[in-house]
């Protein structure tokens, strides 16, 4: 048989393509099945949070709220800021609301602590950036994470103007105090952040931090004119982080909060 290299390669390529193409014909048999949201799940058009720092009086208030998130979401403690993973934490006024330094502000004011987490923006730049849709915006306004799809490119971390996202730079499992079996841990190489406790909302529960905050964090549907968050946001003075960037954060900070119910 006289066949030259180019002809051989061409024929081998065609046969391979046929073989590979044929393998895609396998179809899963569809059974008559359906999926639906859970009946006791909480629904909303636009979940939002109002932060009332006046309710955070002691060190324990902060610890309790942060710990509630850490324990049910298996958040590891690596013990160093380089690999750190945090979903909700506190930072001071000067750094949380950066831009526009008032040099006459006393240090007391500059050092006032604020709870900080993902803002679940209405125009999330992280969702725009994600090349696989691993972070996506739900119909109820929550910016959620699909850890299965994340390739760990960390483009979303660059895109987030609020520093809300963390990356698993190493295996988190050895660094989790006590693994809660009801929620997965994450694998190294994926990005994670606060997800407004979507798994608790599906069970009809408020987010863990909200429950643990004793009124310091108020959670509700901004779209519902009767919700507490809507009433607070439309009648009281609130500020949000970096609004000039147009991302429309859904986390509002009450100014002079003690006057609300």
């Amino acid at each position, binding site marked *: 048989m006289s066949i030259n290299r180019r002809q051989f390669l061409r024929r081998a390529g065609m046969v391979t393509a046929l073989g590979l193409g044929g393998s895609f014909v396998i179809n899963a048999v569809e059974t008559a099945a359906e999926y639906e949201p859970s009946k006791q799940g909480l629904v909303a058009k636009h979940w939002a949070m109002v932060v009332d720092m006046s309710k955070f009086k002691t060190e324990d208030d902060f610890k309790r709220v942060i710990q509630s998130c850490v324990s049910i979401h298996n958040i590891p403690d690596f013990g160093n*800021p*380089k*690999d*750190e*993973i945090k979903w909700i934490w506190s*930072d001071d006024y*000067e*750094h*949380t609301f*950066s*831009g526009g*330094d008032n040099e006459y502000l006393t240090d007391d004011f500059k050092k006032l602590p604020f709870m900080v987490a993902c803002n679940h923006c209405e125009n999330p*730049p992280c*969702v*725009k*950036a*994600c*090349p*696989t*849709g*691993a972070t996506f915006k739900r119909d109820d306004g929550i910016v959620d994470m699909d850890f299965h*799809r*994340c*390739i*760990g*490119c*960390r*483009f979303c*971390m*660059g*895109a*987030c*103007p*609020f*520093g809300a996202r*963390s*990356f*698993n*730079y*190493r*295996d988190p499992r050895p660094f989790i105090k006590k693994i809660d079996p009801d929620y997965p841990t994450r*694998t*190294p*190489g*994926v*990005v994670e952040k606060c997800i407004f406790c979507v798994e608790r909302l599906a069970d009809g529960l408020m987010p863990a931090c909200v429950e643990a905050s004793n009124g310091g964090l108020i959670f509700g549907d901004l779209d519902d004119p009767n919700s507490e968050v809507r009433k607070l946001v439309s009648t009281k003075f609130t500020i949000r982080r*970096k609004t000039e*960037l*147009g*991302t429309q954060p859904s986390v509002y900070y009450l100014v002079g909060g003690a006057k609300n119910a």
Partner: protein
Amino acid sequence: MLEKALTGSKKYWAWIIFLLVVIAVGFMAYLRQFSYGLGLTGMSRDVSWGLYIAQFTFLVGVAASAVMLVTPYYLHDFKKFGRMVIFGEFLAVSAVIMCILFIFVDVGQPMRILNVLLYPQLHSVMFYDMCVLCGYLAINIIVGWTSLGAERKGVHPPKWVHFLVYLSVPWAFSIHTVTAFLYAGLPGRHFWLTAIMAARFLASAFAAGPSLLIILLLIVQKVSKFDPDPPGVGAIQSLVKIIRYAMIANVFFYICEVFTAFYSGIPDEMAAFKYVFVGLDGHHSLVPFMWTATFLAFLGIALLIFPTRKNKVLLPIALLSIFFANWIDKGVVLIIAGFVPNSFDRVTEYFPTSNEISIVLGVYAIGFLLLTVLYKVAISVREEQAQ
């Protein structure tokens, strides 16, 4: 034609073996990183992109620079570049492959990387980046290999090659523009949020890429019987003109950025520039790099403006200055300074680890290996033709 890369002098094989050793070390380092996680690098929660993405950014520019040879030769019939174009295209191939490898080693879950194509998100610049990079790679491999093959047989390349060549011109601009858009569209990073980012990327690419190419061609002149720029043709000097104006444009754009930042006096605009030129909040690890780059940039431009550009010793020095000025600017400073200060106005510095550097060197070695092989093939074909 690949078999031409399997024969060579002792020096050729010594170079190949050296590259293979560097690749092996890099590969071992990558295995360590693959099993431990990216924590083995210097990246952190605040500086989430480091040397890998910085090298990718720089090399996309080098890849795009092939267009500076293709456009004059194919679109404007500038015959002087005739003997050089193939080397530009092969440099582009090698650079794009290094880009793809740098992305691969940087990604946290490399086994899932096909998710970008399986679940395309049309609003994500990174999706388009993957598409245009792969497309550019395909175009350059096909065009380069086909024209070289045709040359070897002593015939004209087939007509469809011309269509691909014309396509490669806007495509080259697009790969670097899309890469610039990765950065220029992020609302929270003020160092990157500038309209001039894409223009600066292109200008610096058209200075750095051809500089590297000329250095490579000078080496080709030394080590082979083929001369890509025979005496009297002046192809290299024509390319030097392009480099000169591209670098002047690049420096001018940079000065524009510095002006906007400091004349407006807006703290967010100035912060990162302060970090790289004088330090911020007591952190100044990038300052020596930035000033070296500044010095090299002006040195390079000066040497290329004056008749020193015709000097056999000073020309390579000028080109290396320009190349390294751009490498420092894009491959060291740009990415890291984008994360300074972080979203909370604090400075977290970034220091690459030795494992990380081994991987970087390994990827560069793969690129140079590919470049060596492709150049060897091109040179051998041309040497053959000359007989």
